[in-house]
């Protein structure tokens, strides 16, 4: 199975990289960009064949290593 994980900054956490991207988009002539938030995308190939077991394992991975719960949120999809 494949787990796809999006890690994003929590609301209220400043994202200077997102701000720089927003600025660059403006410089390139893309008007109306009201905000940019940058995050991470991680794919994990799993030997597990049971979807709920896989979800449980990946949830633990996110909590233990992949995200920093102080500043980040994560979302998982498994297929």
């Amino acid at each position, binding site marked *: 199975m494949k787990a796809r994980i999006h890690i994003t900054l929590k609301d*209220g956490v*400043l994202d*200077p990289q997102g701000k720089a991207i927003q600025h660059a988009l403006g410089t390139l002539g893309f008007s109306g960009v009201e905000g940019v938030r940058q995050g991470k995308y991680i794919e994990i190939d799993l030997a597990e064949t049971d979807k709920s077991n896989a979800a449980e394992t990946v949830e633990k991975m996110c909590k233990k*290593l992949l995200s920093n719960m*102080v*500043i980040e949120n994560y979302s998982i999809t498994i297929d």
Partner: protein
Amino acid sequence: MKSAVVTFPASNCNRDMFDALEKLTGKTPYQIWHQDSEIPDVDLIALPGGFSFGDYLRCGAMAARSPAIKAIALHAERGGNVIGVCNGFQVLTEMGLLPGALMRNSSLKFVCKTVHLQVENTLTNFTNAYTKGQVIDIPVAHHDGNYFADEDTLKMLETNGQIPFRYVSKAGEATASANPNGSQNNIAGIINERGNVLGMMPHPERLIEDAQGGTDGRGFFESIINTLK
């Protein structure tokens, strides 16, 4: 006073920390590799600066899951002193020994310069050799030193005197222009509630003798030595 310096792959200030501790304590620190799961009985464990594991995923994230980490956490739990400088500070927050997180500098640039720090709390194990309100000059060299914590945590840090070091102007004012990385409340270093774990972005180990251009970092090490007398 016995100490140990923990080295991770791509630590690069471990030797500076080792030399500072050796010169000022008069005892050779233990050198601990990140894969060592046991650390000898010491008074102080130091986590040095650098770019452990290439800063992959997040700064300090991989190091904070190393085999040596359990021994460091146990040492702290028993009341042992732990310091983390620069990458070491990032590792301590990733371990959860200190609250908050260190994010990319607000300028997005690597900052390498000498900054002014105010010593705000001199009642800690790590600052008692300084005088309250003293402004010291210490170098910073980092890309990710932008301290972030939620409002409740910040309030707790401020109320409990858990911010021994703050970025200030030469005159001692915590202005935006004196803040090299965008840290909330100009925070340069914090200490845990119990008072035995300290993390800071600036490098006191780089200023312990005149040959390094100044001695403002000596007080940091002298404080720890005073504490453990």
